[in-house]
């Protein structure tokens, strides 16, 4: 199971502009999701997007860190899940723009032995074989 997700993008825009895009509700609605976000620690907000087969389209968050224009963090969870993850945006000024880092963390570890069952491109094939394999193992 992937534990943390990390993305980095170099954006040809100054950190102040990137910060606005990350924190202003109207901006967020344009590129992210419809929302009632405010960059205030403790603020609770809702994000709404298209539902999927296993997703009702609603996400909940609470702002935990506002360090303009360097870092922004909030908790992030799906509606019916009591389990929270953490989203942290880090803005690093660089020549000609901003290095934007997104960390999405807090996914609970699964035991490595199970991770080895799932990770990798061959897992579908493995899953098809798994029941037969388990049947042959000694109890």
């Amino acid at each position, binding site marked *: 199971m*992937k534990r943390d997700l990390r993305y980095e993008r170099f*954006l040809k825009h100054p950190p102040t*502009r990137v910060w606005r895009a990350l924190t202003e509700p109207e901006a967020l609605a344009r590129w*992210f999701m419809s929302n009632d976000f405010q960059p205030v620690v403790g603020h609770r907000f809702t994000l709404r997007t298209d539902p999927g087969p296993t997703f009702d389209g609603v996400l909940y968050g609470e702002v935990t860190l506002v360090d303009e224009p360097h870092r922004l963090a909030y908790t992030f969870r799906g509606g019916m899940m009591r389990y929270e993850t953490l989203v942290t945006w880090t803005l690093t000024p660089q020549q000609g723009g901003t290095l*934007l880092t997104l960390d999405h963390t807090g996914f609970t570890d699964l*035991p490595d032995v*199970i991770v080895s069952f799932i990770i990798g491109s061959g897992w579908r094939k493995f899953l098809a074989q798994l029941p037969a394999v388990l049947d042959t193992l000694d109890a």
Partner: protein
Amino acid sequence: MTLKTTQQADQDVFTAIAHPMRRDLLAALAQGERSVTNLTAPFDVSRSAISQHLGILRASGLVSVRQQGRERYYRVNAERLSEVQQWVNQFERLWTQKLDALEDYLDNMAADDDA
């Protein structure tokens, strides 16, 4: 974010795996089907406590059980675990898509400012 299969698991999968004892039980079951007696042996915990944890894992759809004589045998539902991985993958797709959208948004904003 609900993870519901056609079986409609009642227990949230992530809460189920959040407990270290339940993760240990899943690790033990990854080797193959085990009886409750066999699962209880290595832990300094009562059988009823183990049963309670197994019940939560079952309600989440991560394990299933069969009865044989007086023993109950548990095994991992690999399909359910793959759903957990798929949920993480959904976020991966989401972020990749949204970061592209952020870049487009910023570029358009800059173009408007320059115009």
